[in-house]
């Protein structure tokens, strides 16, 4: 039973490690205080990529990239999901920077509306950037080179900056990956605890096996019914037990010890606790 629990602990540990590999970075981010992206004292250039952020997104430019995930089964189409990467503002004091945010299918229309309102505002068509906002929370992550290149190309094609060198300065290779911070934190804690359980279980199992082997080697007599018998005299019993021939094991044991059939059955049922190996 004890060994069974230890093995279960190791299995829990293995799954927990998988959780940590999948979720670890986000989980670490959630352990720090969450930063409001648009708070006055937030400096986007000083935030790290293990930072959890929250923001009410009220302005965005267009989306610069789409990531499509197509699922198939046995060669047949099952489903398709799109993730869109929109450009949003971020600040360092008064200076305006741009980062990305990953938006899934269900929020695409809302962000498109925000983008349209932002465009109208920038063009002077309206007096304010619009009333549509989206509350987001998630992790600040680094854009890979390919995605960052798409973002740069958007600014180049839009001729947003007078000097192209300003793109490198003000367009940051960062994006917000939305996830539920509380859930990510909980999963991370479960992963850490589970991994610790797995490590401890493995340690106890190894130590237990080692201790058992030492005890088996040290055992020279076996005590049955209050009498001690040389361990070597019971090797025949052990052989029958290993072969699952219980009746013969009982018979052999009784021929050595003289105990009754019922007593012999009880001893054979718990043979591992009598004859250590």
């Amino acid at each position, binding site marked *: 039973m004890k060994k069974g629990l230890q093995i279960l602990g190791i299995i829990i540990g293995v799954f927990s490690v998988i959780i940590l590999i999948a979720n670890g970075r986000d989980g670490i981010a959630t352990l720090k205080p969450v930063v409001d992206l648009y708070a006055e004292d937030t400096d986007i250039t000083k935030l790290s990529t293990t930072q959890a952020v929250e923001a009410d997104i009220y302005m965005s430019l267009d989306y610069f990239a789409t990531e499509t995930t197509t699922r198939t089964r046995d060669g047949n189409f099952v489903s398709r999901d799109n993730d869109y990467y929109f450009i949003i503002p971020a600040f360092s004091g008064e200076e305006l920077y741009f980062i990305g945010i990953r938006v899934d299918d269900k929020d695409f229309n809302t962000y498109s509306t925000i983008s349209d309102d932002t465009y109208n505002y920038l063009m002077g068509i309206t007096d304010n950037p619009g009333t549509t906002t989206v509350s987001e929370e998630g992790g600040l992550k680094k854009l890979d080179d390919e995605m960052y290149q798409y973002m740069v190309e958007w600014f180049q094609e839009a001729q947003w900056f007078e000097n192209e060198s300003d793109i490198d300065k003000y367009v940051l290779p960062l994006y917000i990956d939305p996830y539920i911070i509380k859930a990510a934190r909980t999963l991370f804690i479960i992963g850490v605890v589970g991994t610790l359980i797995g490590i401890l279980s493995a340690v106890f199992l190894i130590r237990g096996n080692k201790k058992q082997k030492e005890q088996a080697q040290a055992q020279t007599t076996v005590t049955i019914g209050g009498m001690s018998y040389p361990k070597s005299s019971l090797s025949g019993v052990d052989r029958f037990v290993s072969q699952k021939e219980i009746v*013969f094991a009982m018979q052999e044991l009784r021929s050595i010890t003289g105990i009754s059939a019922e007593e012999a059955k009880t001893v054979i049922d718990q043979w591992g606790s009598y004859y250590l190996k």
Partner: protein
Amino acid sequence: MDSDLIKTLIAVAVVAFVVIVAVLGLVKGQKYMKTQKEEGTDRKRLMKAVADLLGDKFGDFTYAVGRYTRSERRGNTTHYWYYSYALAFNAADVLIIPFVVKDGEIRFRNLMPVNWEETSLKYRPSKKDIRVEFSIAGAAIPMFVPYVMKSSGIENSSEPLGFYQENEVERLLTYLPGYPAKK
């Protein structure tokens, strides 16, 4: 020759090989049993070995062989154990003598007289065999005692020796109801 044809030929060759080996094995087994029917060499071997074991008591009993298979699943692997038994019996007594055949010799692993005060007995005859179960304090030896114990002639297989023992099994069937086993 294109690759599909080669793959097909290889698959056919593998299947043919397996079928040929299986058929050869069956033919060999049948030939072996024919020898046992005509000459009874395995019976003679076993009787000699039992006579050496029991000495003067040998003539007090009739002899048949039985077997049982035990399997245990551990994880994804199933382990099998095969046991052969010689049964020595008369109207009053039964001796269970497990044996193996190794290196051309019959080796007895144990000799257990059945103590009727402790042992309960169940049996069920069928067309091919009698299923017998001896139980002591809840631990059981189940076995099949067939009218014909088939063997492929391979000594270290699970059924190494072949017997035609219809007369002996019929006699056992007449004794079984009369044994004073625990109820």
